[in-house]
C-alpha cells in the first residue's frame, strides 16, 4: 500500500478525507486521541475491505464513515460511557439534545447570573443576624457565628446545584428539611462555655464536623438526587477537591487585595480594619464559596490541568514525609506524645493523605494500566497506615490512662474510620497493580466510603454533645 500512496493521487485524497474525519472526531472532548486512533484503525480496515470488493476509495470512504455512525451520536455514546470526560465540557447538566452553541452560551450566562445572585444572597444572609443585634466582631456568649458556620455558605451552594441539575421537588424538600433540622438542633443545644466565654470541647467538635456531614447534602444536590448507584459521586469527590483549590486561590487573592487596601487607606489616615472585619471578610468568604462553585463548573478545563499536577507533586512529597517520620521514630525510639494539639495534627495529616488519595483516584483514567504513580500512591497509603496505627496506639493508651473525653473519642473514631479506609484502599491498590482488580473497584470503595464519613461526622456533630453533656 505504501508504494501506491506516492503514485496514486486518489490515495492522497483519501488521506485528506480521513484526516478531516479524525479532526472532526477530535473536536469532541469526550473522545481521546487513543479512542480516535482506535476508530481510525477501524475505518481504514473497513475502507480496505470495501476497496477489495471493488469500490473506489471515495465510495469506500463514504460507506465506511456511514457505517461508523454519525459523529454526534458516536460522541454522545462515548460521553455516556466515559462520564468523567463529559466533565470537561462546559455543559454538565445533561441536556444533550440541544447542543446548539447559541443555547449553550445562553445557559452559560444564565448560570453565571444565578451564581452571582446566590453569592450576593449568601453575603447578605451573613449580615442579617447583625440587624438583630448580633454583631460580627463582638461575640456574645453562645458564639452565634461559629455555631452556625455550616449554614452561611453550604445552603447556597446546595441551592445552586438544586437549581442547576435540577433536583426533583421531593429532593429539594428533603434537603431543605435536613438543613433546617440541623440548624434548629445546633442552636437548641445548650453547649457549656467557660466563665471567660471560651467554648467547650463538644462545641468545637460540632463546629468541625457538622459542615462535613452537611457537605454530603451538597453532594446530594450535586448528583441531582440520584445518589444511589450514581457515577456522579466520583465527580462530586473531584468537585470537592477542585472547589478547595479554587477557594484557596480566591482567598489568597482576596488577602492580597485587603492587605493593600488597609495600607493605602492607612496612608490617608483612615482605619479600614473594622470594615474589613465586619463586612468584607465575612461577606467575601461566603460569596467566594458560591462563586468558586460556579467557577469549578464553568472553567473546568483550567483546573483540570492544574489539580492533577498538584496531586502528582504532593503525593510523593507526603509519602517521603511519612517515611522519614516512621524511620525517625524507629531510629530514635521516640513515641508520639499525645497532647490535644498533636492528636488534631495527626488527624489532619491523615485527612490530607486521604484527600490526596481520594482526589487522585477520582481524577485518574480508570482504564489506564498501573504505572509509577500507582506505586507511589500505594507507598503513600502504606506509610499512612503505619502512621495511623501508631497514632491509634498512642490515643488508645491515652484513653486507657486518663479515661474518655470527647476529643479523645473523636480522634480515636476518626483514626479508625481512616484506618479502615486506608486498609481497604491498600488491598485494592495492591490488587490493581498486580492486575487482579479493576480500578473501578477502588473507586466504588471510595464512593461507598462517603457514606461512612458522613455518618461519622454526623455522629460526632450531633450525638457527642448529648453523650458528653455538652462539656
Amino acid at each position, binding site marked *: 500500500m505504501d508504494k501506491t500512496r506516492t503514485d496514486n493521487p486518489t490515495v492522497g485524497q483519501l488521506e485528506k478525507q480521513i484526516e478531516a474525519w479524525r479532526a472532526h472526531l477530535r473536536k469532541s472532548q469526550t473522545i481521546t486521541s487513543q479512542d480516535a486512533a482506535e476508530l481510525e*484503525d477501524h475505518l481504514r480496515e473497513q475502507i480496505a475491505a470495501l476497496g477489495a470488493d471493488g469500490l473506489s476509495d471515495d465510495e469506500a470512504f463514504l460507506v465506511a464513515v456511514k457505517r461508523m455512525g454519525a459523529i454526534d451520536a458516536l460522541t454522545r455514546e462515548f460521553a455516556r460511557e466515559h462520564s468523567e470526560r463529559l466533565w470537561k465540557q462546559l455543559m454538565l447538566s445533561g441536556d444533550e439534545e440541544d447542543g446548539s452553541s447559541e443555547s449553550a452560551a445562553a445557559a452559560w450566562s444564565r448560570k453565571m447570573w444565578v451564581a452571582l445572585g446566590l453569592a450576593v444572597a449568601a453575603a447578605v444572609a451573613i449580615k442579617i443576624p447583625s440587624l438583630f443585634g448580633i454583631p460580627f466582631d463582638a461575640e456574645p456568649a453562645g458564639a452565634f457565628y461559629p455555631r452556625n458556620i455550616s449554614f452561611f455558605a453550604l445552603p447556597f451552594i446546595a441551592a445552586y446545584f438544586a437549581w442547576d441539575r435540577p433536583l426533583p421537588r421531593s429532593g429539594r424538600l428533603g434537603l431543605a428539611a435536613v438543613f433546617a433540622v440541623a440548624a434548629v438542633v445546633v442552636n437548641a443545644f445548650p453547649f457549656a462555655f467557660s466563665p471567660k466565654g471560651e467554648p467547650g470541647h463538644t462545641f468545637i467538635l460540632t463546629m468541625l464536623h457538622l459542615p462535613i456531614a452537611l457537605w454530603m447534602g451538597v453532594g446530594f444536590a450535586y448528583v441531582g438526587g440520584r445518589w444511589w448507584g450514581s457515577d456522579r459521586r466520583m465527580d462530586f469527590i473531584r468537585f470537592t477537591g477542585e472547589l478547595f483549590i479554587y477557594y484557596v486561590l480566591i482567598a489568597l487573592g482576596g488577602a492580597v487585595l485587603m492587605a493593600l487596601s488597609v495600607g493605602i487607606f492607612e496612608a490617608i489616615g483612615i482605619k479600614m480594619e473594622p470594615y474589613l472585619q465586619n463586612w468584607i471578610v465575612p461577606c467575601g468568604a461566603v460569596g467566594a464559596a458560591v462563586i468558586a462553585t460556579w467557577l469549578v463548573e464553568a472553567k473546568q478545563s483550567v483546573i483540570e490541568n492544574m489539580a492533577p499536577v498538584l496531586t502528582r507533586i504532593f503525593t510523593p512529597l507526603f509519602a517521603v514525609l511519612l517515611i522519614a517520620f516512621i524511620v525517625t521514630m524507629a531510629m530514635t525510639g521516640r513515641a508520639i506524645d499525645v497532647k490535644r494539639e498533636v492528636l488534631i495534627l495527626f488527624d489532619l495529616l491523615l485527612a490530607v493523605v486521604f484527600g490526596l488519595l481520594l482526589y487522585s483516584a477520582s481524577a485518574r483514567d480508570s482504564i489506564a494500566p498501573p504505572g509509577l504513580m500507582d506505586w507511589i500512591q500505594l507507598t503513600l497509603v502504606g506509610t499512612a497506615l503505619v502512621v495511623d496505627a501508631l497514632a491509634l496506639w498512642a490515643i488508645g493508651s491515652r484513653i486507657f490512662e486518663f479515661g474518655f473525653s470527647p476529643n479523645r473519642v473523636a480522634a480515636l473514631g476518626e483514626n479508625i474510620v481512616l484506618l479502615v479506609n486506608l486498609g481497604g484502599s491498600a488491598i485494592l491498590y495492591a490488587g490493581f497493580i498486580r492486575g487482579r482488580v479493576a480500578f473501578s473497584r477502588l473507586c466504588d470503595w471510595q464512593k461507598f466510603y462517603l457514606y461512612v464519613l458522613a455518618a461519622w461526622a454526623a455522629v460526632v456533630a450531633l450525638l457527642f454533645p448529648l453523650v458528653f453533656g455538652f462539656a
Partner: protein
Amino acid sequence: MSINKDLVAASSTALVLAILAEGDSYGYAILKRVRELSGGALEWTDGMLYPVLHRLERSGLIESRWARAESGRRRKYYRVTDAGREQLADERRQWRAVDKTLGKIWS
C-alpha cells in the same frame, strides 16, 4: 429481518465476551464476526461497539493492549479476563433461560 435496538444493546455484553473468549481480537474483527454469526440480522453501527468495549474494560471483564498490526498500523487488541469468563458463563445461563422459556411457549 432486523433485531430491535434494545435487544441488540442487551445482547452486546454476552456477544462481545463470547467472541473474545474464542481468542484475542480487535474492533473491526469483532464486528465482522458478529455479522458472520448473525447472518447480518444483528446490525450494529460500527462506532457503537467501542463504547461497549470500553465499558467492559472499565469493569475489568476484558483488557486491552496496543500492538502493531500486519499493516504496520497501531491496533488495540482486547482479551477476556478471568472475571470476564465468569461473567460470560453467567450471561450464558441467563440467555439460555430466556431462550428456553420462549422456546417452550412457541414450540
